[in-house]
């Protein structure tokens, strides 16, 4: 497919256009600000002159004779009545003024130094590249600023200043463009080379405009409104201003008008040309439309997010993709994705017609684009793409043969790529199998939320349909969900059970017993095909064991540090919890993964996930306010602990007031007191938490959720039931507010727990106004913290990822960059592949035990 290369680009040179070149390039000399004549045709010598290209269909370009889209336009020019400063070169003009003698026009470097400079520039470019050469040029120019006497004619050099954007001062006197231009014209090529300039491509006198290039009309097309009226592009508007003022300046000069009038017009022309290049300069008011909105001129077209680079060149739009809201569906498989009919009928898969699928594809063709499952296009062997319509349908059906390609609708089991931004790690883009469903959102299993970091509060995700066999194979083999179970971050499983599923499995394996019928129907409901022979009463452990492989061995600990044992696929001791099947902790899942591979693990994970939910539904589960009720004696215990702590804090305060307190190392007395009080108050909340753990029933649903690891912890329960605890701002007790106190109802200098944000009540009891206020303070603080930190850390991560993206581990275990330079001699110093480790290390003893133990 590679067509032959005729010429190879050897180098690119960027340079300025000299007035001569501008005239040579131009096909039109623009002399009038009029655009169209009375009949509506472009005026010759006007800004829309048809020799500068065509923007209307059917008309031919008068320069090259081609039609719209074939001719890409030709430049024109205008002769300026007086020289004008080019704003984009104002800094360079200042540099040049400073670099050359104001008397003799020679460079302020002695002749021998010029020779030396030329040689160093060549040497630097050869050895260290053009960037280094540019830096050297800057350094040379900076040195010339300080030269006060011309080395050639000994003339004294004056001070130059730039008054942005386009005024230059010599001492206190203004220099006009004519004066500057005459000076620059004296500069010799030899002298320029001494500065590192290449006089062929950039002569300083070209920084001052005497002719202005007019861009082709194709670059500034006018729009015809519905009313038939023409609306010109911003650039055309600006150019017509320039041409108009330029003509007036010519006329005034020729008529011998007073110099004041000429000067005013000259300044006006300078303004128009400046804003033509850049309309966002701060020093001058932007040129505006009649409506008052600023014109978009050359610089604004190119730069910033909406500019040519980032919007049109770097920003790419993708075909065969879809985006919509996501929602959960626990019945769908982990590697499946529910796709709405509306999306499936728009996205297509190209399928090549063969003897084996011809009849099958004809069904799609018969259905057409409007009936699912149909097809939208047929591609003939000659490459012609035909849309399927009621008119073309019959002929296409007739001629369909081997070698044709049918673009059929997306169907069940097609592979697609699913993505959620920001794509920070590889699990943010995974391959899924399509499942076409009614309604209008993408459906995914809640268990695959965590790799995408998705939730369902309005998140949207993107879908892409691979269009070639190779792409489909890659998505299938390398990207599918099951290939991503283990995260390369620390070698743990990023996909696992969560929430109700953990609670369900916990209860099932811990305490549930049911009769044979219930057990069988539970296993059937999760789609299990092989049901073991059960006795009349079945324990939850037996039901859970039914989904495990028959030769599975597993020994570990639960979250509560009790042993858990699986022997020959039977759970004989312990129960299932977050530590065995949870996200990023599931030891059982990791064990399954290393023994049976990813496909089996994914299926087992789905089974476990659904078993938990169904088991929980059979048992019934709810949480309520009474979960946090305390018995009278516990209440008394809690109150005693609280008053003890308050007493202890008060004691510390009296000690401090009596100057008996001893300072901790590296702390002042005040800091010591604060630290000790904080310690006391945190201790009491933990103590209350312990009381509650002991007293609350193991059947208490809130406790079950905390113990199984499904949601919440004992601290949360303690906060609800008994004590919210100390509110901390930046790691300290609350200390801001009024002078010497947090709220005006406290005494100045009061240090008691209650006055510094300690909340001694639980959420259920209700907290009083001042406590509520302290709580709101810390709440707002953490909200602000998150809102300010996320974009910062996001950008930090992006910079890190971009800096490291070319790093590669070679076969000799060294880490090298794109230039094959060694960055690290042994990956991670220990050469461990983290995705095959457990939390970054490999437990050799455990492996030996597993291998030998069998």
């Amino acid at each position, binding site marked *: 497919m590679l067509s032959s290369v005729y010429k190879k680009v050897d180098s690119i040179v960027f340079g300025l256009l000299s007035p001569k070149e501008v005239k040579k390039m131009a096909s039109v000399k623009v002399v009038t600000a009029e655009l169209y004549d009375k009949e509506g045709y472009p005026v010759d010598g006007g800004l829309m002159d048809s020799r500068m290209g065509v923007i209307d269909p059917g008309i031919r370009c008068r320069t090259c004779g081609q039609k719209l889209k074939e001719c890409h336009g030709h430049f024109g020019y205008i002769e300026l009545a007086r020289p004008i400063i080019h704003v984009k070169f104002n800094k360079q003009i200042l540099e040049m003024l400073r670099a050359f003698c104001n008397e003799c026009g020679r460079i302020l470097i002695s002749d021998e130094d010029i020779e030396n400079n030329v040689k160093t520039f060549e040497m630097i470019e050869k050895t260290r590249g053009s960037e280094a050469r540019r830096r050297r040029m800057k350094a040379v120019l900076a040195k010339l600023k300080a030269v006060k006497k011309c080395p050639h004619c000994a003339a004294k050099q004056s001070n130059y200043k730039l008054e942005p954007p386009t005024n230059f001062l010599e001492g206190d006197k203004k220099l006009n463009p004519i004066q500057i231009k005459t000076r620059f014209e004296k500069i010799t090529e030899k002298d320029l080379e001494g500065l590192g300039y290449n006089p062929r491509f950039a002569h300083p006198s070209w920084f001052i405009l005497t002719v202005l290039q007019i861009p082709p009309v194709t670059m500034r097309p006018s729009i015809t409104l519905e009313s038939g009226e023409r609306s010109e592009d911003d650039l055309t508007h600006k150019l017509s201003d320039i041409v108009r003022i330029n003509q007036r300046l010519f006329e005034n000069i020729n008529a011998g008008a007073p110099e004041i009038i000429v000067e005013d017009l000259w300044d006006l022309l300078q303004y128009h040309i400046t804003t033509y290049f850049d309309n966002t300069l701060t020093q001058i008011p932007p040129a505006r439309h009649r409506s008052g909105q600023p014109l978009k001129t050359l610089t604004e077209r190119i730069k910033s997010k909406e500019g040519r680079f980032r919007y049109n060149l770097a920003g790419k739009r993708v075909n065969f993709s879809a985006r919509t809201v996501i929602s959960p569906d626990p019945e769908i498989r982990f590697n499946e994705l529910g796709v709405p009919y509306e999306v499936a009928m728009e996205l297509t898969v190209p399928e090549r017609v063969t003897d084996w699928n011809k009849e099958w594809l004809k069904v799609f063709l018969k259905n057409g684009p409007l009936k699912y499952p149909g097809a939208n296009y047929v591609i003939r062997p000659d490459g012609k793409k035909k849309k399927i319509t009621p008119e073309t349908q019959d002929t296409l059906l007739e001629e369909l043969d081997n070698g044709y390609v049918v673009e059929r609708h997306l169907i069940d089991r097609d592979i697609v790529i699913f993505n959620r931004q920001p794509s920070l790690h590889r699990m943010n883009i995974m391959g899924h199998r399509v499942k076409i469903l009614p309604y209008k959102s993408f459906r995914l299993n809640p268990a695959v939320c965590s790799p995408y970091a998705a939730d369902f509060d309005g998140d949207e995700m993107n879908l892409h349909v691979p269009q070639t066999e190779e792409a489909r194979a890659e998505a299938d083999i390398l990207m599918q969900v099951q290939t991503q179970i283990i995260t390369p971050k620390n070698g743990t499983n990023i996909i696992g059970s969560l929430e109700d599923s953990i609670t369900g499995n916990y209860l099932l394996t811990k305490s549930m017993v049911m009769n044979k019928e219930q057990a069988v129907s539970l296993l059937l409901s999760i789609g299990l095909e092989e049901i073991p022979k059960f006795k009349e009463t079945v324990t939850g452990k037996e039901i859970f064991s039914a989904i495990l492989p028959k030769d599975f061995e597993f020994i570990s600990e639960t979250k509560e540090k009790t042993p858990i044992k699986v022997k020959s696929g039977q759970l004989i001791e312990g129960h299932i919890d977050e530590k065995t099947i949870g996200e990023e902790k599931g030891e059982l899942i990791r064990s399954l993964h290393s023994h049976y591979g990813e496909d089996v693990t994914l299926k087992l994970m789905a089974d476990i996930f659904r078993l938990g939910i169904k088991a929980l539904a059979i048992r019934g589960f709810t949480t309520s306010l009474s979960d946090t009720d305390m018995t009278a004696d516990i209440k008394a215990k809690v109150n005693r602990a609280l008053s003890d702590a308050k007493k202890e804090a008060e004691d510390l305060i009296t000690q401090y007031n009596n100057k008996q307190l001893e300072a901790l190392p590296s702390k002042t007395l005040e800091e010591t007191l604060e630290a000790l009080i904080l310690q006391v108050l945190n201790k009491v909340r933990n103590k209350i938490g312990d009381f509650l753990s002991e007293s609350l029933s193991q059947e208490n649903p809130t406790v079950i959720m905390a113990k199984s690891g499904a949601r919440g912890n004992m601290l949360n329960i303690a906060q609800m039931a008994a004590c919210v605890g100390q509110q901390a701002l930046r790691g300290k007790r609350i200390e801001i507010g009024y002078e010497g106190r947090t709220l005006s109802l406290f005494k100045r200098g009061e240090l008691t727990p209650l006055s510094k944000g300690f909340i001694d009540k639980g959420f259920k009891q209700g907290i009083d106004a001042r406590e509520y206020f302290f709580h709101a303070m810390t709440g707002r603080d953490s909200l602000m913290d998150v809102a300010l930190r996320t974009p910062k850390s996001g950008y930090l991560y992006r910079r890190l990822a971009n800096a490291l993206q070319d790093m590669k581990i070679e076969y*000799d275990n*060294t880490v*090298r960059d794109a*230039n094959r*330079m*060694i960055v*690290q001699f042994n990956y*991670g*110093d220990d050469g*461990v592949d983290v995705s095959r480790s457990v939390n970054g290390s490999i437990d050799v003893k455990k492996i030996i035990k597993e291998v030998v133990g069998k």
Partner: protein
Amino acid sequence: MVETKNIDYTKHVLTPKHIKMDEKEIEELLSKYNISKKQLPRILREDPAIAEMDLKKGDIIKIIRKSETTKEAIYYRVVID
């Protein structure tokens, strides 16, 4: 301003050991990784850790560091100007 005495940075606990390699070791190193000296990480001759050593451009320094993942990690750097 803090008074800066003549501190020997090379004696500080946080400064890893820097050792100059001899010709034979260098040859072994380069052939082990199949690289040229240009592909090694660099160290300035005036780097405080090696400033006192008698070195010239192109010498190779062996650095023995403590590592979070292993006890010792060995790095090599080539001296540049």
